[in-house]
């Protein structure tokens, strides 16, 4: 256990915390008496102010300890690291050191940003208050100010830490599943728009892409979120996984498989024109569930063999993902699979958690497994189709 020693200035910081809390308490008693003269005002000020002053002391002391006392850590990170071996353990140890530096930087930054925002909160309260307003409303303003100050101090550093965590840990986790690596996602948005894979969207959020060779095929899997509108009117058009795979086939042209949009939706889609023509297929169940458009009728059917259609339908009905959307450009098959829930995939742990936190690593590994299961399903779709299409003497 490393010895814990205080940095110079710790005593002064503690005195400031207690002093500030006392001044705050006194101010509150004064405001309360002014608002309601008599015993009621005094008691309200003493007890409510005392409680809040106590909270300020606790928060302040915690901050002082984390900033001024060396060797302090809210959680022991070493036991978590023991479960991870090799390169990953080394990387996590480095990240743990960076995380601690990040916390220290955030706290140092918060030391002046939080008071500034508290002052701004006080100014906002004085500007907006009216005669007869409850003076305790000031606590709301101060609380918001303190939160804003801390968020201001943490935002940039936290973002940098999370980005770094992804860049260093995800490639190592991905490598356990094959010749895969993590990189910043570059979704083919122009193709999505040109072939109208999704209804109109305004904004695309896509950060993470797992790419490389998987089961002998070039693969790329990325998380994708498409939204329309902004603020309260923001609507998620698509949230899920886009898995792109280069098939060992001689396909050509463009084929789009999209969920059926109903009689009027399909008619409107056809009226919009474009290079792709509707493809009528023999499988009535598939025809009912999906609309297919293609630049080459024969190539579309070479891809959408009866076996492929059957498995595609079974995949859509499996419930693991929402209705799949497929775009095939020559031999490149891209499938967009919507996922339920609003949780983002590949989210690194917060800087408040140890870098080697077991639950966070398990979550990231689980996310990788989920996207690779989606890739497996896409690969199986085509393997089954080509096996079924192979003539049997």
């Amino acid at each position, binding site marked *: 256990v490393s010895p814990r020693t205080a940095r110079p200035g710790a005593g002064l910081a503690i005195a400031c915390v207690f002093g500030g809390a006392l001044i705050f308490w006194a101010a509150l008693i004064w405001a309360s008496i002014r608002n309601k003269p008599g015993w009621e005002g005094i008691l309200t000020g003493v007890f409510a102010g005392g409680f809040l002053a106590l909270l300020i002391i606790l928060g302040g002391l915690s901050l002082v300890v984390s900033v001024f006392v060396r060797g302090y850590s809210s959680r022991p990170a070493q036991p978590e690291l023991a479960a991870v071996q090799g390169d990953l353990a080394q990387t996590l140890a480095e990240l743990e050191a960076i995380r601690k530096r990040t916390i220290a930087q955030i706290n140092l930054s918060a030391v002046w940003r939080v008071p500034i925002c508290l002052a701004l909160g006080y100014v906002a309260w004085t500007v907006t208050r009216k005669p007869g307003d409850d003076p305790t409303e000031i606590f709301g303003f101060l609380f918001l100010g303190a939160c804003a100050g801390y968020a201001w101090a943490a935002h940039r550093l936290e973002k940098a830490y999370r980005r770094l965590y992804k860049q260093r840990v995800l490639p190592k986790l991905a490598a356990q599943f094959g010749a895969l690596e993590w990189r910043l996602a570059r979704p083919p948005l122009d193709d999505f728009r040109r072939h109208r894979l999704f209804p109109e969207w305004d904004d695309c959020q896509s950060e993470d892409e797992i790419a490389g060779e998987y089961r002998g095929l070039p693969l790329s899997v990325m998380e994708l979120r498409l939204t329309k509108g902004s603020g309260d009117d923001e609507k998620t058009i698509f949230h899920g996984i886009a898995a792109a795979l280069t098939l060992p*086939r*001689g396909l050509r042209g463009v084929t789009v498989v999209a969920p059926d949009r109903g009689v009027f939706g399909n008619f409107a889609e056809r009226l919009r024109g474009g290079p792709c023509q509707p493809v*009528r*297929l*023999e499988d009535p169940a598939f025809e009912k569930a999906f609309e297919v458009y293609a630049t080459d*009728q*024969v*190539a*579309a*059917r*070479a891809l959408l*063999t009866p076996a492929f259609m059957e498995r595609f339908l079974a995949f859509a009905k499996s419930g693991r993902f929402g209705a799949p959307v497929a775009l095939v450009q020559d031999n490149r098959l891209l499938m967009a699979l919507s996922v339920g829930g609003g949780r983002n995939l590949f989210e690194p742990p917060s800087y408040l958690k140890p870098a080697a936190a077991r639950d966070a690593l398990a979550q990231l590994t689980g996310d990788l497994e989920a996207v690779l299961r989606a890739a497996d399903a896409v690969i199986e779709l085509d393997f089954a189709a*080509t096996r079924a*299409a*192979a*003539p*049997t*003497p």
Partner: protein
Amino acid sequence: MAEEGPFMNAIGWIAVVVAAIGLYAWYAAIVQRRNRVSEALSGIDVQLSQRHELIPNVLAIAKRYLAHEQQLLSDIARLRSEGSQRLGATDPKAISEKFAAENELSVGLGRLFAVAENYPELRSEKLMSEAQATYQEVETNVAAARRFYNASVTALRNACQIFPGPLLAGLAGAGQMPPFFEAPAAYRGPVNAAEHL
């Protein structure tokens, strides 16, 4: 009664105009579907010619190992030659004959690759395995072209055989129905799962 005359006349004219527009739309649909069948037929020819182009290479490799399968090899060469001459046929009878010959050729090629499976040296020949992979790709495309063609023929037949289609089919140049391109009978039989286990 005197006022009903012009009103009835107007309704009659409207009915005639609506019927004329309907008949023209039906006629246009038949022409469109007939052209779609022609497009699908030419798509089949493209795929069949790819199959034909593959055969000389396959035969050249197979001859080195399958000397005692001369009959099979010469049958395939003959069927290829006949099939090549029939490419581009537009007459329904000639199209039927072409499809029958191509099915025969497909069965012959399937048998050749099945026989090749019994010769490890031939199977391990790099060119042969490449040819087999290409053959599977070509057959997938032939099957896809066949499905497109059959779907187009079904649509044309529906338009020609549902009233008023029979009145317009001859006028639209679709008097004779093109045949369906059936898969070879050998491939349509029941599958013995035990053979694949």
